[in-house]
């Protein structure tokens, strides 16, 4: 254990961060729960920790250990990483800070100077860094990828990913695969042409780019009318998963552009709203599964893929669990993308069901119109980008669920580079029926709800499960809570006084399990006394 050598110094020496974070350690992230090494905690997208010091009996004693207040006013969407005693967390828009995990005090801070106004649809935010070796990687809202020295925060290289003036930005936390930095792009409200990139972690040179909207002559280009593929969207703004056995990167893609007027992009609009599987070495697409062909409701498939090996109808199978923004829960085969199961997990009024290939059977009258039509789920979906969690102990799938509808309108859609290209302004929250939210536990093999922890408002926070049989989550108005993973009963709650728009993590330092959650502009860390 890396921190043991300093035990002779007692509690006042936090840590020595001298170990290299290798790809091998990332592959075995579950075996070192003292750290939180990658966005979802492991490559399978579980956001689950093996730590159990904080459990159902001790959680009531959780106390604040430290707070780091970011000197910025924008919303925190960052998942912190913890590597050998140092926490790396991003501040909006694209700063990085390295903190002592014992005290929350700062080691260094990288402040990104954003040269010009940037086009980001929903806040100049960032969801976190990736770490490999002694380097920290961060994407920026001006669409660059930057490598920093993990010990000093100095810039080692800085490469342009795309042109920010045409609505490209990077908000996603990168994912390390082998010696590459996998990076997605945002800009589905600006008519970008989405892609997923791989960069050489040492040099910043791009290894491959896979377009999520195929060009002429490429499979799927015929699912776009006319020239609409050029501005087709399908961004990749939430971190995906990696299967080392199949050597597949599995990632979700966002909405087609423009969002709510599909008349200018007739066809299925591949590969928007898809789960895609790419060969990690070449970026070549091995399969895709489209949740919503020709989406006109902005139901991105930017959920974190949850990869689980389980018995499926009596036989072991490599599966993907996926609760999609449109309100259906899916089980897919990880080798082929084959549709195995689909079932609503929240109220939805747009589909009668799914056919045997998983394609939705639409109800009539659900498309946006000039006068507006109310459809469930709403624009923000029945879930969105909030991290789900899978516990190998309970074998339950936990997610943030929204029960809500929106008024969908259709308007003009004219593409002007750098301007919004969305095709209307929907009424997202219905004043008389704003809806409600929940942390929901599903049996992932059937899609049935096992329990619900209801919330008065709709939470923007993801969830984390732990070996202490707990599920942690946060509410829109700043309640941070711990639930019994088996029953959903609330066991502990604290009010942190700010909106939560990220997901919790946990780690251990000096023998103590710590739980970290951001609210407002603060990063809050709790431990037992």
């Amino acid at each position, binding site marked *: 254990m890396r921190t043991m050598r300093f035990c002779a*110094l007692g509690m*006042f020496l936090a840590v020595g961060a001298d170990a290299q974070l290798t790809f091998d350690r990332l592959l075995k992230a579950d075996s070192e729960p003292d750290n939180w090494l990658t966005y979802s905690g492991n490559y399978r997208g579980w956001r689950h920790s093996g730590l159990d010091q904080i459990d159902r009996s001790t959680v009531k004693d959780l106390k604040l250990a430290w707070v780091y207040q970011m000197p910025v006013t924008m919303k925190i969407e960052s998942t912190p990483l913890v590597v050998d005693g140092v926490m790396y967390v991003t501040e909006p828009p694209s700063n990085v800070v390295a903190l002592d995990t014992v005290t929350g005090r700062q080691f260094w801070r990288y402040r990104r100077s954003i040269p010009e106004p940037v086009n980001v649809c929903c806040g100049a*935010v960032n969801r976190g860094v990736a770490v490999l070796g002694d380097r920290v990687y961060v994407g920026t809202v001006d669409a*660059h990828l930057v490598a920093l020295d993990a010990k000093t925060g100095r810039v080692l290289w800085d490469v*342009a990913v795309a*042109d920010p003036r045409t609505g490209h930005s990077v908000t996603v936390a990168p994912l390390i695969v082998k010696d590459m930095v996998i990076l997605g792009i945002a800009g589905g409200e600006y008519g970008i042409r989405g892609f997923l990139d791989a960069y050489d972690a040492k040099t910043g040179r791009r290894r491959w780019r896979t377009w999520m909207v195929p060009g002429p002559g490429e499979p799927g280009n015929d699912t776009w009318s006319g020239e609409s593929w050029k501005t087709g969207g399908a961004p990749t703004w939430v971190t995906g998963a990696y299967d080392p056995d199949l050597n597949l990167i599995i990632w979700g893609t966002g909405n087609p552009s423009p969002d709510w007027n599909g008349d200018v992009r007739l066809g299925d609009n591949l590969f928007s709203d898809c789960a895609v599987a790419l060969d990690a070495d070449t970026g070549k697409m091995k399969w895709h599964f489209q949740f919503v062909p020709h989406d006109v409701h902005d139901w991105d498939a930017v959920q974190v893929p949850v990869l689980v090996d389980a018995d499926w109808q009596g036989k072991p199978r490599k599966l993907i669990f996926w609760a999609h923004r449109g309100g259906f829960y899916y089980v897919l085969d990880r080798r082929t993308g084959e549709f195995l199961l689909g079932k609503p997990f929240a109220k939805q009024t747009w589909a009668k069901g799914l056919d045997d290939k998983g394609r939705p059977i639409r109800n009539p009258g659900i498309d946006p119109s000039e006068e507006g039509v109310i459809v469930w789920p709403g624009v923000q979906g029945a879930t969105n980008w909030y991290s789900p969690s899978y516990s190998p102990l309970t074998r339950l799938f936990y997610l943030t669920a929204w029960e809500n509808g929106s008024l969908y309108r259709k308007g003009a859609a004219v593409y002007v580079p750098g301007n919004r290209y969305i095709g209307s*302004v929907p009424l997202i929250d219905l004043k008389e029926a704003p809806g409600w939210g929940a942390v929901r536990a599903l049996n992932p093999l059937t899609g049935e709800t096992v329990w619900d922890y209801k919330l008065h408002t709709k939470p923007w926070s993801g969830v984390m499960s732990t070996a202490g049989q707990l599920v942690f989550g946060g509410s829109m108005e700043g309640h941070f809570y711990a639930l019994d993973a088996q029953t959903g009963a609330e066991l502990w709650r604290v009010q942190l006084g700010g909106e939560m728009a990220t997901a919790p993590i946990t780690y251990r330092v000096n023998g103590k399990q710590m739980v970290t959650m951001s609210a407002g502009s603060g990063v809050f860390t709790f431990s037992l006394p």
Partner: protein
Amino acid sequence: MGKHLAMMPLWVGLAAAQVQEVKNPHTTPADIAAGAKIFRSHCAECHGVGGEGGRGSALTSGEFFHGGSDAALMRNISNGIPGTEMPGVFFSPAQVWQIVAYVRSLSESAAREAVAGDAGRGAQLYRGKAGCVACHMIGGDGGRQGPDLSAIGSRRSAAHLRKSILEPGAHVEVEYWVASARTRDGRLLSGFVLNEDTHSIQLLDSQDRLVSLQKAGLSGLSIDKSSRMPSYRGVLADQELTDIVGYLKSLRRQRRSE
């Protein structure tokens, strides 16, 4: 799409506002003279009296890494540049425009700084005889016990670099002050001070570890403000020194645009 779309009706107006290009309205000879006066008292300490550079970037090339438009110069002089040593100034917009006018006049009248050394030979000396690479990093290669030199040629004048090599102690940045801490059980740690408060201190220690210490656990703590770097006076021949300076001046910031 993400969230908080309630703001959407504002979009159209914002998008239109971005197209406007701001131009300096204060560019007369009188404005330049007024700008020069402010520059001498507030900017010259780092950028040099004639904008030739020193601790601060040279301003005579006409290239501005953080943006060369009038609006970018206005913003960077007014607000400073985050993540750099450049602070903002507290002047009225009209006065800042005068500074911008003067800064522009520098690149129109002054020639690029001539550097005599052989950069190729300097690079060999840097890695070989002088051994700079052990402590300094360029493009991610090298040590962390001295300042990163990846873009030092953009930030320091040749004269400043030469002096720093001969007299490393003449100016030591706060980031390179060395703390020595003795723990109550007798161990000694030393490193650069990254952060400090009443109760704790954070170091990058001599073995490149990030260390956070609680002061209650220390029996002694001292700060040494002298440089760890040896002087190269008498170690390098004058031509060798010139070549290394030539090499360092060749290390420029890479433009970030695609």
